[in-house]
């Protein structure tokens, strides 16, 4: 009662802002704040991959290894949201970590790997994802993990949780024997990477293998040639006894899915690349009402939608008043004034666009 009154009073004192806006100035990670995190440290893993340790805000609800977190970072001043797998189990210091591989021409990943600095505030959502292990207490099954490239990250998160590791994430040499026997798990990891030096967490996997925790089959494209999924059984003879967890690029996962389906084997996958929006000229614009408007690449979405009878907010109709801004949840648009492309997908989250100067550059969906 008293706190409710106090809160009401604080709201009256802060209007038109909210008390949180002032509290954020001093403690952005406090309970009740929007979920954020602060980068604690950045550790290079390979030449183009790094692990970021992040202290999450007080309301972080924890995660199950294998899950991912959506993280919003300001790259060149623009808030960008991407998903990254959590690469630790729950840690004693309460921090979380992600491991990022810089994708060529990428917006966010090169920034996180090469330019992010400790102390930077990032935005978070609660962990999510169902790429997680089943309950191991009852009769644990045998596992096969197939990882390719940065797809190793959720698997490393699971392994680190299963075996005793130090805070830095590597296997704890003091408890090697414990690692070997404790869980009594039978895990084979097929780890694919372009080359050994490019292999993220390669050393960690080797250490786990040496400790007897896992059976590692490392495959480097440069020495072993590109992995042919149809010959997987040569690498893992007891393949059919195992539940497979796979994470990596779409091509590999598709091949694996076809392979396992033919054999009737269980498979869990996590795909990193959900969709790539390829900008073209014109496209269909979908609205919440179910209406779909076909717009060419030279007509503002505002005009196209209005001619199709959609009620649209608008003002100056020339790009200066921002009275026409709507969130695009999916798709690509082109700024008719200078050709600049803006894209949105499930991972980037909705992006607000000015419909009066934006033409469809592919199929789009507007939240309106």
């Amino acid at each position, binding site marked *: 009662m008293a706190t409710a009154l106090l809160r009401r*009073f604080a709201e*009256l*004192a*802060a*209007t*038109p*802002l909210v008390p949180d*806006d*002032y509290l954020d*100035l001093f403690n952005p990670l406090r309970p009740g704040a929007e979920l954020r995190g602060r980068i604690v440290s950045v550790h290079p893993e390979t030449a183009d991959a790094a692990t970021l340790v992040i202290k999450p805000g007080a309301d972080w609800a924890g995660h199950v290894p294998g899950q991912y977190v959506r993280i919003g970072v*300001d790259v*060149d*001043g*623009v*808030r*960008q949201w991407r998903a990254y797998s959590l690469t630790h189990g729950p840690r004693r210091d309460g921090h979380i970590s992600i491991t990022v591989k810089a994708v060529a021409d990428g917006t966010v990943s090169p920034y996180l790997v090469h330019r992010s600095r400790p102390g930077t505030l990032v935005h978070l959502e609660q962990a999510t994802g169902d790429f997680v292990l089943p309950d191991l207490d009852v009769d644990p099954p045998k596992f096969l993990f197939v990882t390719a490239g940065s797809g190793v990250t959720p698997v490393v998160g699971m392994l680190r949780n299963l075996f005793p590791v130090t805070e830095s994430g590597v296997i704890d040499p003091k408890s090697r024997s414990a690692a070997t026997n404790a869980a009594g798990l039978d895990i084979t990891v097929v780890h694919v990477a372009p080359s050994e030096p490019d292999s993220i967490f390669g050393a960690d996997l080797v250490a786990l293998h040496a400790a007897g925790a896992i059976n590692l089959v490392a495959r480097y494209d440069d020495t072993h040639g590109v992995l042919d999924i149809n010959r997987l059984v040569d690498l893992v003879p007891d393949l059919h006894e195992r539940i497979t967890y796979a994470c990596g690029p779409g091509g590999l996962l598709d091949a694996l899915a076809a392979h396992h389906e033919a054999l009737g084997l269980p498979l869990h996958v996590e795909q990193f690349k959900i969709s790539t929006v390829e900008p073209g000229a014109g496209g269909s614009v979908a609205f919440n009402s179910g209406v779909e408007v076909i717009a060419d690449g030279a007509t503002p979405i505002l005009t196209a939608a209005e001619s199709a009878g959609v009620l649209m907010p608008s*003002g*100056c109709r*020339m*790009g*200066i*008043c*921002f*009275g026409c*801004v709507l969130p695009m949840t999916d798709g690509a648009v082109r700024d008719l*004034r*200078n050709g*600049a492309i803006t894209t949105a997908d499930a991972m980037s989250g909705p*992006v*607000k666009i*000015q419909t009066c100067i934006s033409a469809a550059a592919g199929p789009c969906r507007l939240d309106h």
Partner: protein
Amino acid sequence: MTTITKKPDNPIAHLTPEDIEQIGIELDAIRQSVLDTRGERDAAYIRKLIDVQRKLELGSRAVLLASIFPPAWIVGTAGLSVAKILENMEIGHNILHGQWDWMRDPKIHSTTWEWDMATPASAWKHSHNELHHTYTNVVGKDNDLGYGIMRVDEDQRWHPFFLAQPLWNAVNACFFEYGIAAYDLELGKNLKIPKEKRSEEFKAAAAAVRTKIRKQATKDYLVHPLMSLPTGSFVTTLAANFVANVVRNVWSHSIIMCGHFPEGVETFERKSIEGETRGEWYVRQMLGSANISGGKALHLMSGNLSHQIEHHLFPDLPSNRYAEVAPQVQALFEKYGLNYVTGSFPKQVYSAWHKVVRLSLPNGWLATTTPKNAPMQLAKLYKMTTGGRKVRRALQARLERDARMAKDRMAKAA
């Protein structure tokens, strides 16, 4: 000032349609050069500014808790005034223009921002961004021209009502935020409609303004004074908030007057903007605005509306970049023989007020009045004020003839 197309020396008569389109292309290039370099530095600027503003406001309000002590009152009131000015001008005005939308930060976005003003952000965005910025200085379309209650142009017929306009303007300056709220509501027009016939839209908007005013007033005139009660500073804190609001209002009113009122700024006829091209729109913005010259502090405190010309050309570019493009814009004015209106703050304020006074009087009256003929002129003005429309028209014609003759005499003498 006379609408541009009626002027004998039309300031754009020397421009060919090709010139005008070329101006548009060159301005687009300036705009693009800013977009190409817009990034982290700019984002850091607005974030820092918001941070500083909020801390300044908190600090000032903390000092005001003991405002019963005169030094605390002075420091707190000054700080709060500055905080309120920053909040309205460099932060609120510019965020609501969408200048920072590109950051995709939901907390610093034109669609979510609300400001410390009587008028709700959404209402202001409509009247300001959509109407004023689109129809800048078009007589009859742009209500910013005189906020609907003033005579701002020779072409508007004089009426005795306007004699009081310097007074209106002063009162409006002190309570500017309420003036803007009334103007966003088109209160004058709507109050003339019988109550039961007013549109639902108006009723909803009026309710929103009432709620907003109630909230702002409760905060400034009740909640914060109550917090000062323990030190016996209720009344002094209330006074501090009132003064800070008036200071903010007078300041923003002055800056805005300087943007479109000083001599040399052109107005346009409704007809002249039909089917306007992008180049023509740009030229109208160029001629319809005036800058204030000064230092960094002035630019910051004016919300960079001291770069009113650049702001009107590029209302969606981040305000911290106007200073940087101003020399390029000015060079463009010179290249095309156009008048880049600029002057110091005192000069522009004087110029704007002079115009308010001049136009409060019949055309030509001020120009034909000398200390010697003042009594006669006053008698004439009295007759025009009390007489009917016919009397006014006759005397007006005579005034204008005298003014013309006086001008010719001066020209000959020179």
